[in-house]
Each structure stands twice: as structure tokens, then as C-alpha cells.
């Protein structure tokens, strides 16, 4: 199957998922408002801190907003594309996964991209707007910085993808997904602020072992010109390795899938 056909299947599934999401207009509006409120409340919190303290861990208010906007961009992109993972447990428990496995479409792609969440779209645009506004206030931004920022955002998405594949694998092996997935969300939320704020050994742990720092702090730092070449190289290396091992785990999980619910 070619990429264009995969994209066509994805767009069809997203279209149907969007129809389901918009079935209750009231619910859809409430969820969007809720997401915007969550964004606004933390931004408000940062503003209050910024006005009173001038600098947090050496970062100015606009830099803090830039880190937060970058976090939101990556987090919302992952949620938009990978929303199907949140529905995966039901598929394992009710046996629907068997149906997915028998279809002539890669089950991993189906389980990851089986319907994007249209309700995340407003926040994606808002995050992009805040990234641009905050970046314009930081200054000293180069074209190279912008290029590396975009590449590292792409790398961050791959790391998010690896985490979601890991969650799917755990789901196949144990049927327990919900809190593992939300644990990932909580871990990435530590990246709402630059990882420099945390003390060692936690800082090292969430930079390299659970690479929240690589996902969120590193791209933002790259744009500010505060990331070394080694840092950029390590980011891509860890992104690639995580993705590779997550695929290995997925294959391992599928081999041990017992299909008990079918």
C-alpha cells in the first residue's frame, strides 16, 4: 500500500471520527472550551509568576511562555494524531483488536492513527500563534535556529509516537492502558517549564531517560540558540532509538496476544 493510500484511509477514518465527535455539538464545544481554559489557566499562572519574579531559573517571562507554547504544540499534535490510542483498551477487551488484525491494513497504523481528534485543532492553531508571538519577543533568532526547532519538533513527535506504541504494547499484554497513557501525559506536562528548573538527579532523568527535556525543552532551546550540536545529535539519536525499541516491543506484544476476548 502506498503512502497516498494510507493518507486516504486516515482521512476517511478522521472524517468519521469527527462526525462522532460533533454528534453532540454541546459536548464538542464544552471540550474545546475546557482545553482552552486549561491552556489559559497555566498561562495566567506563568504570567503571575513572571510579573512578580522577573526571571524563573534564569529565563524571562517570554522565554517561559515560549517553552509552554512549545509544550502545548507538541502535546496537542500528539493528541490530535494519536487519539485512537485512548480507545485501544476497549478494542482489546471486547475483541475488536482481532478484527483489526485481520484487515489488510497495518494494525499498528490503525491503532495509532485510526481517527484524529478534530477537537484539538483550535488549540494547535493557538499554540502555533503563541510560539510565533513568544519567539518574536525573545529576539536573536536565526534561520538555522528555526530549522533545527522544526526538526526537533518532528523528532519530539517521533518520541511521542514511541511512547504511544509502548502504551499500545502494554495494552496488548495487560489490557491496562488508561493510567499508563495518562502517566505519559503527566510526564510530558513536566515539560511545560524548562527542565533546567528541576534539580538533579530528576533533571537528568527527565532529560534523557524519560526524554521530556529532549521532546520539549531542547527544541525551544535550539531556537534560542542555547542548544549545543551534541544536544541536537543526542536528541535525534534518542528519538530514533526509542522509536526502534517501541516497534520491537509492539512485535513482542503481538506475538504474546492471547485474543482472550474474541
Amino acid at each position, binding site marked *: 500500500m502506498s503512502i497516498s493510500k494510507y493518507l486516504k484511509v486516515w482521512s476517511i477514518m478522521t472524517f468519521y471520527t469527527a462526525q462522532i465527535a460533533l454528534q*453532540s455539538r*454541546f*459536548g*464538542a464545544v*464544552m*471540550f474545546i*472550551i*475546557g482545553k482552552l*481554559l*486549561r491552556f489559559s*489557566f*497555566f498561562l495566567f*499562572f506563568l504570567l*503571575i*509568576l513572571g510579573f*512578580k*519574579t522577573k526571571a*524563573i*531559573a534564569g529565563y524571562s517571562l517570554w522565554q517561559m511562555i515560549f517553552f509552554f507554547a512549545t509544550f502545548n504544540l507538541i502535546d496537542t499534535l500528539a493528541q490530535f494524531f494519536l487519539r485512537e490510542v485512548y480507545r485501544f483498551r476497549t478494542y482489546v477487551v471486547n475483541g475488536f483488536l482481532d478484527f483489526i488484525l485481520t484487515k489488510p491494513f497495518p494494525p499498528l497504523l490503525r491503532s495509532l492513527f485510526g481517527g484524529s481528534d478534530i477537537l484539538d485543532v483550535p488549540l494547535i492553531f493557538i499554540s502555533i500563534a503563541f510560539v510565533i508571538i513568544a519567539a518574536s519577543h525573545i529576539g536573536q533568532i536565526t534561520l538555522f535556529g528555526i530549522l533545527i526547532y522544526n526538526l526537533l519538533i518532528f523528532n519530539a513527535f517521533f518520541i511521542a509516537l514511541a511512547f504511544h506504541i509502548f502504551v499500545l504494547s*502494554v495494552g496488548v499484554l*495487560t*489490557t*491496562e*492502558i*488508561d*493510567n*499508563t497513557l*495518562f*502517566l505519559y501525559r*503527566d*510526564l510530558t*506536562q*513536566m515539560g*511545560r*517549564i524548562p527542565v533546567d*528548573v*528541576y*534539580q538533579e538527579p*530528576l533533571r537528568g532523568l527527565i532529560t534523557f531517560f524519560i526524554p521530556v527535556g529532549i521532546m520539549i525543552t531542547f527544541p525551544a532551546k535550539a531556537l534560542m540558540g542555547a542548544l549545543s550540536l551534541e544536544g541536537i545529535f543526542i536528541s535525534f539519536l534518542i528519538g530514533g532509538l526509542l522509536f526502534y525499541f517501541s516497534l520491537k516491543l509492539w512485535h513482542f506484544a503481538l506475538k504474546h496476544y492471547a485474543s482472550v476476548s474474541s
Partner: protein
Amino acid sequence: MKKYFLVAKNTWDEMLTYRLNFTMWRLRGIISLVSIYFLWLAVIPNNGSVFGYNRSLILTYILGSSLVNSIIVSSRSYIIGDEINQGNLSNFLIRPINYLMYWFAKDLGDKAMNILFSIFELLILFLILRPPFFLQTNISYLIPFFISIFLALFLNFFFNLLLGFIGFWSPEVWAPRFIFFMIESFLAGAYFPLDILPKPIFAVFQLLPFGYSLYFPLKVYLGQLSLTQIYFGLLISIVWVFGLLLIAQFVWTKGLKVYTAWGK
């Protein structure tokens, strides 16, 4: 009462059914706490203060909010809306059991487990982080602190009930809950102590019930309120508890009249 004790006890077993899920859930709490803890640690200088809070007070507020949250916010009654929508409420209506007491017992079971694990987790964090913690020893603050926690527990139970009762009129029970808790956590003071806000905004927040589930108990614990302020706060809490009780009873009665066991 024995049957409600058994309901609470069964809630423990339910929560421990999926052990991995349970472990991950506990880890989530620790991560959220550590995240906000280090942010405040970076914000407040060693011997300085911000917003009238020194390091010891703000970190006590943050760590205390984690424990108080585990007592107050944890709940099982969030399922009520789905129970109504799926028609499962019928099973309870024909049983010799008070539906509201049943969910209150489940909530208590949930809270008991949360308290137990939160204390254990906080102790470990204390040993690792060794934060400058403010230990309140004055009994005249500790008694109103426990009373305010007790009242906050009821406040949140009635909020959960009312959100669940939306199921009588609409299948959309999760979206209002999502937005409500987003607003509640902010207005309750989960992000920061509410008194750092501009005075007119803070004055309005003081009349709302949300601050009485987190901010007010913690301020009482920190000993930062006068006796008059404490009595006034407790009075507002009591008014809200009884107000919400009456509203919940009214909505429950109205809801039962429109309940059609649809979905069964």
C-alpha cells in the same frame, strides 16, 4: 450501616483489581506534585519570599494541597452519569439501599485508600527532598483545619452528584465534568494560593465554594487567618454544603421523574 461499610470495603478491592493501572495512577500523583514543587522551588529564593510567602510556607501549601486533594477530590461517584444513561440506576432503585449513601460510601472507600497511599508517598518524598516544611502545632488552627476538610469533603461529593445527575437530561455527562474540574482546580487554589490575586478578584473567589475545598483549609493550617476569618470561612462552607445538599435533593427528585431506564 454495615452494608455501606461493605460497599466502602468493596471499593478497595475494585481499585486494586488492575494493579498496573493502580500503580501508574499513584505515580501520576507523585509526578504532578514533583513538577509543581520544583517550579515553586525555582521561583522562591532561599531566604526570600514571593507574594508574602516564604519557601517553607509555599512548599507546605503545595505538599499540603496534594494531601488535601487526595482526600477531597478523589471520588467514585463520577460514574453516576453513565449509570443513569445506561439504565443501571434501575438496579439500585429496586434494592433496599439508599443510592446517595451507596455512592458516599464508595467515595469514602476511595478517599481512605487515597489518604493511606498519599501519606506513604509524601513520607518518601519528604525523605528524598527534605523540604522546609511548616508543621502546625497550634490546636486552635488544627481543629478548624480538620473541620474545613470535613466540610470540603461534602462540598465535592455534592458537586460530583450534581454533575452525575446531568445524565437524567443529557447523555453528555463527561464534557461538563471536564470543564467543571478544570475551573474548580483553578478556583480552588491548586495552581497557587488564591490570595496572591488582585484583591477584588480574591474577594469574589471568597464567596464561591471552590476555594473552601483547598485554599481555605490550607490557609487555616498555615495559621495565616485570624479567628474571625476562620469562623467566617467555616460559615460560608456550611452554607454552601447545605445549599448544595438541598439542590442535590431537588435535582434527584426531579431527575427521577424524568428517568425512563433508557438504555436497559
